[in-house]
């Protein structure tokens, strides 16, 4: 069974329809990439998966998003539980203005873990996972906003992993990073896919081709094509996909 099933999803910002009849199945422990030109609705689709769009006034949604057999758009969905399970990494690294330690421990503390020993263990595990532990194990009190952008983005991923999500949504996680940092983060994603279902939005087609197992191409609110990354890139079924991939629109 797929981890996430999106069925007949339509989303309106006021009168403007940003998603049109989107259907997609996202596989467990795979990396799924969403590509498409600017403004086609990639971020919007991503944000429907943990209901971050609820924060915006005037959003209306029809259809369903089923995660682990549960429709998250039912009335009684527990948003807190949903977002613990489906976490998000943002385009610009956004660590809190706290120490490294407090950034990682933040979610766990709020979810009720108080014991120092257990928090220490969570922090170590999460930082090891993103390869920051060796560099910072003696400097956990460093102010997070003083780290490099790549380190900040790793920290944000660690902060998310610390609350043990199952799905990690990433909205252009490398667009603020240089090529070396980008390559490092891509490698990290590849490691993480053992344990997490990852959905990544990217502008960078090489990136999608490199890291993802499945790719969806969006255009003007529609999911035009969706399939194995290899076949989407080498033998796209839709002419528009082909035009986009060969670089005919921006």
């Amino acid at each position, binding site marked *: 069974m797929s981890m996430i099933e999106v069925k007949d999803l339509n989303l309106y910002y006021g009168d403007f329809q940003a998603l049109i009849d989107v259907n997609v199945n996202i596989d467990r422990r795979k990396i799924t990439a969403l590509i498409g030109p600017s403004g086609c609705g990639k971020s919007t689709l991503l944000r429907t998966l943990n209901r971050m769009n609820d924060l915006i006034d005037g959003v209306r949604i029809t259809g369903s998003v089923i995660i682990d057999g549960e429709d998250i758009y039912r009335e009684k969905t527990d948003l*807190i539980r949903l*977002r613990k399970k489906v976490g998000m990494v943002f385009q610009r690294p*956004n660590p809190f203005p706290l120490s490294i330690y407090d950034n990682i421990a933040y979610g766990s503390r709020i979810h009720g873990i108080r014991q120092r020993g257990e928090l220490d263990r969570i922090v170590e595990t999460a930082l090891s996972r993103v390869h920051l532990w060796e560099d910072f194990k003696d400097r956990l009190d460093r102010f997070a906003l003083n780290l490099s952008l790549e380190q900040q983005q790793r920290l944000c991923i660690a902060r998310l992993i610390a609350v043990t999500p199952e799905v990690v949504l990433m909205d252009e996680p490398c667009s603020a990073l240089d090529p070396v940092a980008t390559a490092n983060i891509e490698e990290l994603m590849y490691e993480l896919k053992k344990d997490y279902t990852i959905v990544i939005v990217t502008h960078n087609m090489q990136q999608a081709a490199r890291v993802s197992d499945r790719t969806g191409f969006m255009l003007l609110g529609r999911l035009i094509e969706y399939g194995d990354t290899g076949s989407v890139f080498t033998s796209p079924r839709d002419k528009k996909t082909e035009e986009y991939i060969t670089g005919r629109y921006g």
Partner: protein
Amino acid sequence: MKLSPKWKQRIAFSVLGLASVVVIVPVIVIFSILIEKGLPAINWEFLTAMPRMGMRAGGIFPAIAGTMYLVLGTIVVALPLGVLAAVYLVEYARQNWMTRMIEVAIVNLAGVPSVVYGLFGLGLFVIFLKFGSSILAGSLTLSIMVLPVIITASKEALSSVPQSFREASLALGVSKWQTIRCIVLPNALPGILTGTILGVSRAAGETAPILFTVAAFYLPRLPKSVFDQCMALPYHLYVLSTQVPNVNPKIQYGTALVLVALVFILNFLAIVVRAHIRGKKQW
């Protein structure tokens, strides 16, 4: 005769410079007069003793203490109320006619003359709620007066916390209220405190709002509870200057100097807090 651009510029600069000098002059004059005529009055006894001989001698301690109590009482009432209102308006309220009404009310509240607050406090707290003329009634009256300042400052401070912090927290499965409590408020706190101190320091110098609600003409002891009256610096100054014959002007100037110094210290505190945030803020 046609002026060259260089001359025009010189003239413009002079006019601008003059304008700013005009702003500074009263401050300098007030301070120098107060210091020249008031400083001789200030000594340990003046600051810590009860007034004697119908306020013509002794100290002004009860008035200093009274003003401190009122400042504290105002902060205790107005800070939580103002912050909660601001949190509601910034974080929860949607834009609709209700919130627009509230915002209009806040703006108008800021423009109400202080004597009107005094009369309002007299009617509501002193008479209707039967608090009598008391620290409680006075603090509540001053609180209502500074509320618009605190709400406005808090709203600004809350709005300046980046949206990305809120999103990051919510995306970790943290509830909205916890996000506000653990991320938004701590980051907005310096701004909130600056606004609060500035508002309260202005209130500390006001006479009209405390005239009918708390201030005692002559009360050479300290209040025992919030239901007692107390003396207060601005009103004491007014009394000394207009109601008591044959006061040594030294005492009047001394009292004014203490009041101005108190307000000045509070404002300075606000500047320190603000400088501190500037130093730390990095987003």
